[in-house]
């Protein structure tokens, strides 16, 4: 059924036809995400809560010293990222924002991409937005980056000469090897991916896809990845944040 429905589309998915990857998962994997004591992503959220309150860096300040209780202060924040950063004159991801806070406000070294701590903090912050709709601001400042992300999504690349859209717009719901092709809505990041047996960021996932189409992946934090991330979040506008998601 799903396969047939997916096959009939080509081009952009109408807003009402969008499905989170959650809906394409098995019953068991969905149950794992739904139960906070079975969801391994919650271990990272737990750890992130500890990091949020821990003083660090030369400034001797914790995230909580400025931002207070994350349950109130961070509510809805992840739903707005990547967001425009006036200092860098471009959108930054939630990970980059956290690292910006670390280096500027806490005067602590930036955390490495995909490090346990950065993922834990990101998951903890994003968890506070669970259930809230993705709300990306599009204005004159972010429009060029959104356009660049859109161009990347529809651009054929790699030795397989595939565009993101060829799988995720045109053939979602069908199978790629043993896996169902999702629509690529980044609703649950950072996600606990069973294949990774760990939490991972959206950038890790995008780099995975790039390797899959035999393109050279961009470095973590590369502007190309952030632009694509911005476009994907805009494409999923209005859909609910699920962090920490579980994916097969």
């Amino acid at each position: 059924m799903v396969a047939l429905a997916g096959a009939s589309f080509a081009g952009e998915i109408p807003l009402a036809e969008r499905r989170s990857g959650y809906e394409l998962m098995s019953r068991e994997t969905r149950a794992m995400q739904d139960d906070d004591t079975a969801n391994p992503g919650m271990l990272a959220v737990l750890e992130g809560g500890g990091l949020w309150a821990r003083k660090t860096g030369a400034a001797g300040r914790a995230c909580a010293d400025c931002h207070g209780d994350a349950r109130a202060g961070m509510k809805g924040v992840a739903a707005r990222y990547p967001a425009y950063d006036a200092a860098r004159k471009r959108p930054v991801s939630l990970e980059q924002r956290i690292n910006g806070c670390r280096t500027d406000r806490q005067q602590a070294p930036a955390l490495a991409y995909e490090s346990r701590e950065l993922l834990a903090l990101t998951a903890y912050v994003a968890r506070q937005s669970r259930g809230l709709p993705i709300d990306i601001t599009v204005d004159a400042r972010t429009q060029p980056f959104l356009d660049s992300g859109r161009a990347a999504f529809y651009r054929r690349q790699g030795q397989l000469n595939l565009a993101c859209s060829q799988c995720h717009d045109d053939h979602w719901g069908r199978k790629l090897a043993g896996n169902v092709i999702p629509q690529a809505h980044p609703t649950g990041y950072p996600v606990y991916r069973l294949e990774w047996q760990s939490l991972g960021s959206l950038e890790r996932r995008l780099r995975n896809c790039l390797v899959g189409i035999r393109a050279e992946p961009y470095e973590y934090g590369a502007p190309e990845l952030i632009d694509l991330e911005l476009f994907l979040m805009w494409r999923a506008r209005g859909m609910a944040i699920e962090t920490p998601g579980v994916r097969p």
Partner: protein
Amino acid sequence: MANALINVPDRARRGEIIEIKTLISHPMETGYRRSQLGARIPRDIIRLFVCTYNGTEVFRAELYPAIAANPFVVFSTVATESGTLAFQWTGDNGFSATETATITVD
């Protein structure tokens, strides 16, 4: 610095069968993998999980390399009396973690 999530009902009737869920953060490195340079990654797993109920052992599990990262163990026991459930995980490289949960039995 292990993180663990425990789910035990707060209250239960005497004689009721209660479900206990435990999830612990652990890489469960099998010892069979090699790094990109070909060096063997040493085994690092949890080998034993024990649950005691007011000091009496009610559940024990031996874990092996085939078990995925962040082991999720669910089991049941009979609520006999109010008290403490203690959970202990032990493994390679001196790994040891303990958690407790309290239950009130009416």
